């Protein structure tokens, strides 16, 4: 098949507040090609595809798409129906199917006129049948979607896109939920369709799939296109170094020899509802004067680990020792009182109560402190003074200390949480993705505070997807994968990158 460009993204840039999610990204897609879009979490892959599909409006740049007479014409941005109309189909990581109606109804839903007495089922069925036989995608059409397996649901999603005459298919982490066999079958089917002229962009961070299945790959890092190559010319090592970058930002040159053990996990297992929230025989040992970096792709059990240390979850097996004593009654208050400072991953959901004021959020973990309350009543003068001092010391800016904390920007919310945590001089600090979504200034501020805490004699558990951050901050690094922690033999960036992806042990 002759190569011709079907889609071109020209210099797309998107900012969310002070965060640059995509910076001047240019991508071309050829007809009949499978293009893999690689990058770590937060590299900007999904934002880019959301702009293509009209969910987000780019700040600058445009998208051109091949029209019926093979010319490239600009696509109307910020309008999902325009993207649909020109034949872009998107299959999200989280399916957008209605579980309580059949696969057939899901596929045709919205593609037919809203009011019509005779929904022309015969024609629709014929069309779907033809798509199924051409592509090899197979799904039980008359079964309720809720009863289908994950693989079947995904095929229904793809059929839905193809039914709308998509000739460009975007798949967001299509294999994240599939078994290896289902994944292989999916790739076989996709290959059949690309031979018939379909073009595919698939987003992933699994290198094996990229190497065995794509024609060409593009690596995104920090929102920028950092490399594009033919898959035939690529190697795992080459991709890994592109994904994680080569520059190291050493924030803490000073090394202090670690002291005594302050937090340890002995064979801790948690049986969660899915693999993402299970832990399997985890051993961990945090010493004072130490930053322990936990690297890994998100969804490998980091959140359960964080919940354990936060006191939200109890282990099903194994024990957790705080400063040498086993804790059996695990709850958040106990952890706070034992000197564990927790910086949660989701600042809005777990970090602050958005409807309470900044001052109130600053003392929310100290409600039974006699300095804060007497006889069950809050001492507002103390609380206001505390807020005054802390907001200056930690540079928390916003509309006002007595205003709802949800009005603060993300960076200032994080500073509020830092102020609350660090003022208690915690011995153990859990920092879960502490700089995600922050601009450079706020991020380096957070990192500085973590180092200060370590130098003061604290132990820090730093969970981060940003390998640069971990390499720059951590005294010791372990990799989290499939609910388990793996020691790393070298702090070589590529080796860790490969371990994260599960390609090496």
């Amino acid at each position, binding site marked *: 098949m002759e190569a011709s460009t079907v889609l071109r993204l020209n210099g797309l840039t998107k900012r969310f507040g002070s965060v640059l999610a995509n910076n001047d990204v240019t991508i071309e897609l050829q007809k009949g090609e499978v293009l893999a879009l690689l990058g770590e979490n937060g590299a900007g892959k999904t934002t880019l595809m959301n702009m293509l599909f009209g969910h987000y409006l780019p700040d600058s740049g445009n998208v051109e798409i091949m029209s019926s007479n093979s010319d490239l014409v600009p696509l109307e941005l910020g309008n999902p129906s325009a993207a649909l109309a020109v034949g872009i189909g998107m299959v999200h990581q989280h399916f957008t199917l209605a579980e309580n109606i059949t696969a057939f109804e899901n596929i045709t839903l919205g593609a037919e006129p809203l009011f019509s007495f005779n929904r022309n089922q015969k024609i629709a069925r014929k069309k779907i049948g033809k798509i199924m036989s051409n592509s090899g995608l197979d799904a039980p059409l008359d079964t309720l979607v809720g009863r289908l397996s994950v693989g079947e649901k995904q095929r229904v999603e793809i059929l839905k896109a193809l039914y709308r005459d998509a000739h460009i298919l975007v798949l967001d982490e299509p294999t994240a939920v599939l078994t290896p066999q289902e994944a292989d079958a999916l790739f076989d089917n996709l290959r059949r369709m690309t031979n018939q002229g379909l073009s595919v962009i698939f987003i992933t961070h699994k290198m094996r799939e990229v190497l065995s299945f794509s024609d060409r790959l593009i690596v995104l890092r920090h929102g920028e296109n950092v490399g594009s190559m033919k898959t035939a010319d690529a190697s795992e090592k080459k991709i890994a170094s592109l994904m994680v970058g080569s520059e190291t930002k050493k924030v803490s040159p000073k090394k202090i020899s670690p002291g005594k053990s302050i937090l340890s996990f002995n064979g801790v297992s948690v049986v969660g509802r899915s693999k993402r929230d299970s832990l399997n025989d985890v051993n961990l040992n945090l010493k004072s004067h130490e930053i322990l970096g936990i690297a890994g792709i998100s969804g490998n059990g980091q959140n359960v680990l964080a919940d354990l240390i936060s006191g939200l979850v109890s282990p099903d097996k194994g024990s957790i020792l705080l400063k040498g004593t086993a804790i059996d009654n695990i709850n*958040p208050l106990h952890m706070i009182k034992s000197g564990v400072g927790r910086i949660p991953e989701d600042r809005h959901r*777990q970090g602050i109560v958005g409807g309470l004021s900044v001052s109130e959020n600053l003392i929310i973990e100290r409600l039974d402190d006699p300095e804060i309350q007497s006889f069950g009543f809050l001492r507002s003068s103390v609380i206001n003074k505390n807020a005054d001092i802390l907001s200056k010391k930690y540079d928390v800016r916003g509309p006002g200390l007595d205003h709802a904390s949800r009005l603060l920007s993300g960076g200032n919310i994080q500073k509020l949480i830092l102020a609350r945590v660090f003022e208690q001089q915690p011995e153990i600090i859990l920092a879960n993705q502490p700089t995600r979504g922050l601009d450079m200034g706020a991020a380096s501020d957070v990192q500085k505070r973590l180092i200060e805490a370590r130098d003061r004699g604290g132990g820090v558990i730093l969970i981060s997807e940003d390998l640069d951050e971990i390499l720059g901050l951590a005294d010791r690094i372990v990799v989290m994968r499939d609910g388990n922690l793996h020691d790393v033999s070298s702090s070589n960036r590529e080796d860790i990158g490969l371990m994260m992806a599960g390609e090496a042990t």
Partner: protein
Amino acid sequence: MIRIEPREKISHSSTVLIPILSAVVSLLFAAIPLIAAGANPLIAYVEMAKGVFGSIFAISEMLTRATPLIFTGLAAAIAFRAKLWNIGAEGQLYLGAIAAVTIGSGLFDLPALLLLPLIIVLGACAGAVGMVGPAYLKVRFGADEVVTTLLLNFIIIIFLQMLLEGPLQDPMGLGWPQSAPILDQGMFPPLIDRMRLHSGLILAVFLAVIVHLMIKYSVWGFKLRAVGENSSAAKHAGININRSLFGVAILSGGFAGLAGVSEVAGLKGYLTADLSPGFGYAGIVVAMLAGLSPLGVVIASVFIASVFVGADSMSRAMGISSFLADLVVSVSLLCVLVGSFISKFKLVRAGTGKR
């Protein structure tokens, strides 16, 4: 596409203007059925105003009507603040009333200084008991309290009917399904001579002020607000959510129970199965109108009682069907709710900005 976004700041002028505007709009809408029924809406509205504010008697009747609404409004407001959806105030009201007549109709012969407080305390406890089951089921098993509290209403009302035809039936009542009357010393003293307005109103307003202060200044209130606003952050911060929810449930049931006490021991004197014309459910409307603020509950109760009483006396004075009064009530409630929605939210054209 249009979507709804909360306003970041609510301007002061809009907090005053919008309620007035919605009242005016509701009067305009309500004029349509009035004209259709052959009445002059202007005269009708004058009659309505007279029925509410025209005399001391009118005002006292209106406040009598507002009293149980304050109690049930508080019950809903405090529970909803913690995102605990207690729809069972109607049943809890009857539990309080049952306790009041059981204790007050001669079980104990105590002086007024002792008997009335006893009735109040045990009536509140009885209402609270009505929330123990649903709260336990929610905390322990995650059972939806909307379902459990709502269904309990029917169970309690049927239980009440059984009591009124059995153990609680007044032996002197000629076989009517009603309880024996509460002793005189067990009744709330009237506020004005020869009028129905009783000191239950004082208790209701007093409690509203107390709840307001507790929510604003106490650790308990802080926890309640935190749990209601964002329970996962509250849990993360070490607040025992289940304990908070349980406490709120008990208190909410208690307030609803007091509504029953105040109706029985303040107004009727004895208990029948039609004691409450839906005060428990009206309390939800009151609480929503009040924006879940305890002091707002007092104002909203007075407003709703005014509309009820005013529409009633209008239909009597004009000789039009009392169904029209209900219509006026509904229209004005809808207008005020829409108005308060507009003051809190704005409509935004989608497709611009992110998402």
